[in-house]
């Protein structure tokens, strides 16, 4: 099964995988299968767990048809040129019984059998990847015209955001894509396909209405509250709280990266929210203004200066160029610092895009 992204240049992996039995067990418990690629993220547990916890396959979607979500994940990964996620999603669809030919037709949108709603969702996914929040208002209207309810639209936005997050998290450190691309061609995998499909199918489940335990008090709180009642909200809240609690990078440094992504995507509401949080961290308005205008300020420390500039590279990217830039950081940061920076910027890109759709701003 030839992948349409095989020609996309992909650098050698920046980091080494680290065995972590608790992480393996966590993945197996939630998805039914081990996820070997998580070992690359083991030094930053919140990031590794977020990759499992935010996957739309496992109990996060209540209203949106799972097939639409699956196709959306495939198309957004294709649009973002993430060879790993694209191959992983193809392998997932294949293991669940979709033929290689059907997958190829879906990718090329050749099939006239795609429902108009699916086509509208695909168009939204593409728009978010190419244009971002600037196109959110039109995209929202197009989804509404296609017949999606508000709750379905939130889940579509979440699916795209989660995929944007996965795509960046796997692209920046150049997690090896070849084994995943070759998986459906291996005889053993072909033989085990029904078994794998069954194992995944057993853990794949629809979500149920879930109350938000407590109000949030951090940037993106408004986004989470806008999703209250859906299982997406507590999942996102847990991930964001774990991200703040992690200490590889300072809170101020993380906020600065979020601010740069919000500015690059033109998301004013996120920018205000993050600006207030930075003020609470003691950063004055003039300094923040300088950082956002010129990606630099004398008040920044060396790590902040590096990562503020790196954050803007993650907004629109060519995989190989982004991987080369991440490689330059590899010599100047520890592996946990680098991975945390990758996690924060990846999450920021997803959440900003989702915020524009869910909260109706751009």
């Amino acid at each position, binding site marked *: 099964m030839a992948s349409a992204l095989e020609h996309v240049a992909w650098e050698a992996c920046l980091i080494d995988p680290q065995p972590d039995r608790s992480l393996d067990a966590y993945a197996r418990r939630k998805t039914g299968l081990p996820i070997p690629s998580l070992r690359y993220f083991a030094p930053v547990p919140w990031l590794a767990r977020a990759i499992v916890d935010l996957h739309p396959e496992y109990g996060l979607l209540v209203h949106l048809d799972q097939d639409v979500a699956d196709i959306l994940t495939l198309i957004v990964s294709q649009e973002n040129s993430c060879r790993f996620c694209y191959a992983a999603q193809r392998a997932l669809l294949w293991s669940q019984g979709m033929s290689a030919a059907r997958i190829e037709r879906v990718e090329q949108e050749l099939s006239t059998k795609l429902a108009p709603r699916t086509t509208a969702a695909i168009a939204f996914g593409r728009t978010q990847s190419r244009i971002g929040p600037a196109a959110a208002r039109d995209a929202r209207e197009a989804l509404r015209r296609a017949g999606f309810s508000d709750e379905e639209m939130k889940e579509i936005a979440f699916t795209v955001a989660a995929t944007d997050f996965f795509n960046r998290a796997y692209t920046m450190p150049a997690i090896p894509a070849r084994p995943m691309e070759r998986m459906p061609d291996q005889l053993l995998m072909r033989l085990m396909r029904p078994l794998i499909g069954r194992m995944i199918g057993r853990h794949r489940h629809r979500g149920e209405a879930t109350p938000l335990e407590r109000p949030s008090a951090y940037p993106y709180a408004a986004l989470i509250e806008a999703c209250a009642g859906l299982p997406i909200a507590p999942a996102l809240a847990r991930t964001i709280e774990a991200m703040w609690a992690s200490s590889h990078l300072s809170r101020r440094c993380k906020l600065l990266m979020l601010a740069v992504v919000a500015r690059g995507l033109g998301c004013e509401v996120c920018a205000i929210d993050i600006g207030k949080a930075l003020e609470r961290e003691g950063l004055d308005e003039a300094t923040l203004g300088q950082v956002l205008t010129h990606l*630099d300020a004398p008040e920044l420390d060396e790590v902040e200066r590096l990562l503020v500039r790196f954050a803007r590279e993650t907004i629109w990217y060519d995989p190989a160029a982004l991987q080369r830039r991440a490689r330059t950081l590899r010599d100047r940061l520890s592996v946990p610092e680098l991975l945390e920076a990758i996690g924060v910027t990846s999450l920021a890109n997803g959440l900003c895009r989702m915020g524009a759709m869910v909260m109706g701003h751009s």
Partner: protein
Amino acid sequence: MTGTFALGIALAAIAVLAITLYRQWRRGENLQRQLRAAAADLDQLQNACARLAPAGVVRRLVADGMQPDPAAERKVATAMFVDLVGFTQLSERLQPELLQRVLDGYYQRVSDAIDEHRGHVGSYVGDGIVAYFGAIQPNPWQCDDAVHAALAMRASIGAYNAELAREGLPPIAIGIGIDRGPGLAGLMGSRERREYAFIGRAVNFAARLQALTRQHGVDILVSETLRGELDPGFILTPMPAAAVKGFAEPVVTYAVEGRSASQLSSAADSA
């Protein structure tokens, strides 16, 4: 006897069915092979097109399939005009093949600097290059990016001149003009041939600034508008007001000297 006959019929039917199924399978395999070959051709075509137009634009066209061209959009972008100084003398001194090699080296270095700083080459105009920053995707840091790109070109052409000197070839020099302003970005041209372009006053003014570099004896000139948006870490020198075609009043411009020493390390990080 009847049993044998029935068995024969059954075997024959199974054989016919098997042959039919085999043929269907072969046909399916064939179709899949053709589909894969067509997809590979399309990929190849897309890659080839990416050499002629910005990759993002090509991807968008391929994904949008047979839909008509997306409408051009109003944007604020930064335009850069780069030109080779003394091209006529150079072309008189060098054989055409050698001239082409020198020119290719120049185009490559300038394009790499543009690409590395998130700009894209709009078109080649003779020995000149028009580039845009922030025309395809939103880029609030487009002014700084353009000036960083210009400084990278200066360094890169300096290194290229050292290579040319080793081969006994004459050095080349470039002039760069940069301005920022509103305009229309999108696919433009005739029905037969279209290209992604940005049109607006800033593009014309960037070309005029590039021509002014010769008059002022500098290599990088930016407009007053662009200066207002730039990182204060860039060292700029105001040039005497000069008459520019199409402008009633003499125009004040700024030569870019470089970046202040305290900012150099962070500039290197960004590059």
